[in-house]
């Protein structure tokens, strides 16, 4: 069952392998494919939004359809693109960076992926089954409760299923990072990406339950006639806003902290320097996560919480600027005195610094509670969070794609095309979103289907759409690059960037057990230490021994499929008896699979010492 053997398999066998895999590297690839697909879908929706807003009083798409597109753009990008793409790199890289052979719970890891995928598919089925959700990704009640289509049923159930997957992923990574570090890999020697993955997982653990609760209440309101958020029945619509943002604000940090980690890796590697102020960086990450839970109500300054609450949340929000500033300066001083190679991943990191600084600046501006009364729910805020989420998260993910493509696929993405992607996307991004700060202040609220002529908003919107088109071209080139490299790219060296961390010590392709012998970590940037003080190879911390590996399983797929079918059943329960059949069938599949998993012993298998010595892979 080595990877070399797998590559010779036919398509059917490969497909079955991926459907049943519990290998973190393959699950990483699945996340990359799934997240990438939804990223393109969300991008398509973004293009529709920009085309509709290209001209005043435009009738390109209707109001209802626009609202569905706008809602699904936000929901898709956050839950179905950014989150899984972050998980893609966490899966592919974190176990390698800490010197582990897999994550702590490989079965749960696979389950997390399939739950995400089926949840995302369920949500997007709404397009073909009566209409997508139409009330914004924030789904404020009572609009979302009263929305006549099934859209928000799909939203509640689809995100619930996806959310289960995310929660499992988060727990899995906490356990993995806490328990499975290689000998010598103390906390303060962990690479920054692993640190941020750990902190983001902790954030997931505490933030997602709030979403789960909110979605459950919404499900009961919509499907079973409860009235948690319906004001005239004694409910309170503001509670949804609190629940949503108690989850929603940490979610921003769940996304952006791993991106910070990616940039820390990229910047150190391509500056050939150790991270400046490593402990300050770790401390800043923890601090951002901690503050991240105390600022949710800054999304609600106009709700009418009163000046005391508004002031407290304003000050708490401003406080986050301090650790973020520490990070920016630490990156700059990592580059200071370095030997900077402007490769494609480094270009994205270089583009990230000014972009994210602007996003952070406008972040402090919107934190000024009184002034936020003007910014709130306008294009100023739209510009702000795109600077943070595109400038931080998406730039980070594209940097990671280029940086870790060799680790994941054994090939380097074309550098020339990569630079084209960067410049088109970077320029397009600033064209699209910089002007939107001004559009917002000039009186354009967000989520507007059309703006009317004579409001002097025409020029800004037109420029914004042109920028969006450039971003689309950049993305298409990236896609072409990926296809081209996959089809005709050459296998590269196992350490093409002159890396510093453990993932670059592994052979290309990485064996499915990762490390033949677990490496001994002698400090921060362990591979770099061996390169400068040793012979450039990791010192093994153990003799060659039998390796215990988990078996593949089809049950995660079946369990997720069961929830998917049951979810559809719940949504259409009131429409037809098919709904009840769906509920029963789905739950039987789901619980049946769980019972099989619980009853049947699955002890995994061992790779024998003799076979390992024959293969001769891993640390030597």
């Amino acid at each position, binding site marked *: 069952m080595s990877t070399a053997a797998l590559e010779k398999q036919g398509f059917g066998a490969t497909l079955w392998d991926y459907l049943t895999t519990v290998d973190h590297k393959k699950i990483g690839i699945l996340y990359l494919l799934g997240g990438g697909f939804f990223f393109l879908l969300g991008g398509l929706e973004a293009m529709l939004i920009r085309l509709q807003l290209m001209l005043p009083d435009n009738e390109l798409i209707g109001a209802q359809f626009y609202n569905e597109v706008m809602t699904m753009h936000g929901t898709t990008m956050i839950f179905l693109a950014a989150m899984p793409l972050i998980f893609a790199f966490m899966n592919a890289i974190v176990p390698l960076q800490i010197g582990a052979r897999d994550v702590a719970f490989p079965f749960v890891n696979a389950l997390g992926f399939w739950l995400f995928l089926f949840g995302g598919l369920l949500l997007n089925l709404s397009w073909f089954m009566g209409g997508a959700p139409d009330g914004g990704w924030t789904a404020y009640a009572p609009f979302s409760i009263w929305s006549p289509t099934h859209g928000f049923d799909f939203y509640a159930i689809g995100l619930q299923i996806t959310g289960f997957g995310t929660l499992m992923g988060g727990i899995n990574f906490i356990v993995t990072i806490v328990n499975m570090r290689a000998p010598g890999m103390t906390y303060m020697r962990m690479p920054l990406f692993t640190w941020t993955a750990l902190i983001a997982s902790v954030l997931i653990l505490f933030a997602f339950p709030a979403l789960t609760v909110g979605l459950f209440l919404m499900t009961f309101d919509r499907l079973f006639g409860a009235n948690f958020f319906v004001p005239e029945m004694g409910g309170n619509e*503001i509670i949804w806003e609190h629940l949503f943002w108690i989850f929603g604000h940490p979610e921003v940090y769940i996304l952006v902290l791993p991106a910070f980690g990616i940039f820390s890796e990229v910047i150190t590697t391509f500056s050939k320097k150790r991270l*400046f102020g490593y402990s300050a960086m770790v401390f800043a990450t923890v601090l951002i996560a901690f503050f991240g839970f105390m600022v949710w109500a800054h999304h609600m300054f106009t709700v009418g919480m009163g000046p005391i609450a508004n002031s407290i949340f304003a000050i708490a929000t401003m406080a986050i600027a301090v650790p973020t500033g520490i990070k*920016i300066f630490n990156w700059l001083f990592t580059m200071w005195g370095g030997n900077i190679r402007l490769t494609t991943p480094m270009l994205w990191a270089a583009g990230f610094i000014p972009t994210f600084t602007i996003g952070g600046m406008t972040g402090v501006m919107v934190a000024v509670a009184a002034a936020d009364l003007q910014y709130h729910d306008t294009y100023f805020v739209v510009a702000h969070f795109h600077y943070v989420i595109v400038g931080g998260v998406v730039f980070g993910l594209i940097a990671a794609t280029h940086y870790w493509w060799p680790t994941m696929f054994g090939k380097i993405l074309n550098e020339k095309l990569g630079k084209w992607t960067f410049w088109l996307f970077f320029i397009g991004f600033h064209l699209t979103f910089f002007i939107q700060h001004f559009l917002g202040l000039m009186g354009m609220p967000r989520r507007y289907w059309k703006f009317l002529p004579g409001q002097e908003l025409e020029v800004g919107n037109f420029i914004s759409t042109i920028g969006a088109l450039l971003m689309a071209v950049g993305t298409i080139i990236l896609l072409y690059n990926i296809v081209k490299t996959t089809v005709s790219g050459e296998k590269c060296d196992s350490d093409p960037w002159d890396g510093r961390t453990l993932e670059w010590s592994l052979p290309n392709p990485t064996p499915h057990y990762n490390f033949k012998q677990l490496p001994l970590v002698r400090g921060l940037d362990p591979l770099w230490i061996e390169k400068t003080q040793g012979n450039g190879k990791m010192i093994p911390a153990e003799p060659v021994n039998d390796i215990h590996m988990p078996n593949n399983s089809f049950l995660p797929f079946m369990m997720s499929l069961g929830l998917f079918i049951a979810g559809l059943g719940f949504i259409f329960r009131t429409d037809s008896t098919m709904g009840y059949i769906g509920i029963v069938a789905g739950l039987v599949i789901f619980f049946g699979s769980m019972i099989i998993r619980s009853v049947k012993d699955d002890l995994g298998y061992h790779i024998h010492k003799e076979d390992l010595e024959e293969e001769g892979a891993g640390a030597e």
Partner: protein
Amino acid sequence: MKGWMGRFRALFLLGGLALVLSGCGNPYLSALQPKGEGADMIMDLMILSIVIMLFVFLVVMAIYVFVLVKFRQKKGQEDYIPKQVEGNRVLETIWTVIPIILLLILAVPTVQYTFALSDTTPETQEGEEAENAEEALWIDVTGKQFWWNFDYRDKNVQTSQDLYIPTDRRVYIKLSSGDVIHSFWVPTISGKMDVNPGKNENEMFIQADEEGVYWGQCAEFCGPSHSLMDFRIVAVSPGEFDQWLSDMQNVDPEAEPESEPAREGKKLFSENSCLGCHAVGSSPAMMGPNVTNFGDRSKVAGILDYNKDNIVSWILNPEKHKPGNQMTGNYTVPSKEDAEKIADYLMSLSPSEIGPDDAKDDDYIKPQKDEESDNKNEENNEAEDSDENTNEEQSEEE
């Protein structure tokens, strides 16, 4: 409230930043061209925060450009291994402490202004009797998909879509919603406030520095025509406002219009039970916009140019103009001729001489406090006007 921050703004006005910003956008829509107390205060905060942030940005960019230019790999240096610096305690302390100081500078006025803007205790000005506080003008604003209703509390006056306010004082508004969450936003006058259904009612004050017709919008997503839920604030001088209020109080919903088509329109309006939703006078129907002073509307449905064609078009097919509105499908669509007559009637509904045009001229009419108490004798409105019209120019600034 305007003390030191006002001076600060003047300083940067000279610096040009505020000047550049204030050139942005439509003067009656843009938050960058404040014309009211709330928007003024927020503009001060914006400029303070922009100045601080620009300073930070310039520092970051200076280091950034220097680093990228100076330390980029040069030819022949591919194998150069830089010194592996762990950190620098002094530098790290500096970039922790300076941002904290900058944020404190921003935090103080933030808290100060947050409290000031949310204060809806009616102000008592010096030299005026205490009961003025109780006479503060309160307006109950209701947002509905996709229009606004304005109920002048204890004044027995209701309007929709055009909110008339005097320029000489703060007007207090209470916001509530009849369906989903909306948000009341007039960028040039003040920041926005959410309009929640149920018990989560909000209060705020609005105050316009000068006369004008200011654009208002819904800023919280509320449905298909969220982007079309516009309204206007018509800020007129206090004398004009007093006259408008008394005209509105004395409106006779039964008054027969002058022209023949309009008279027929009035009949059609009640026969087709339009009145079931659209009140004439101050009755609180609130199903649809109040049409008491429809003849003076600045826009049709808040978005279309005010003319007969557009009114007819709206009556015949409201869905075309505001998708998802509550009128579509809930009334019998009249014939085109009937719709024209109804339009004639609606356009004849002009109980007051004060309209949006009065907000656009520079006539400043002083308040008529004495007459206000006994405004039952409506006939001498004309007489009062000529007496009181001292047409004083608005004194600039304080």
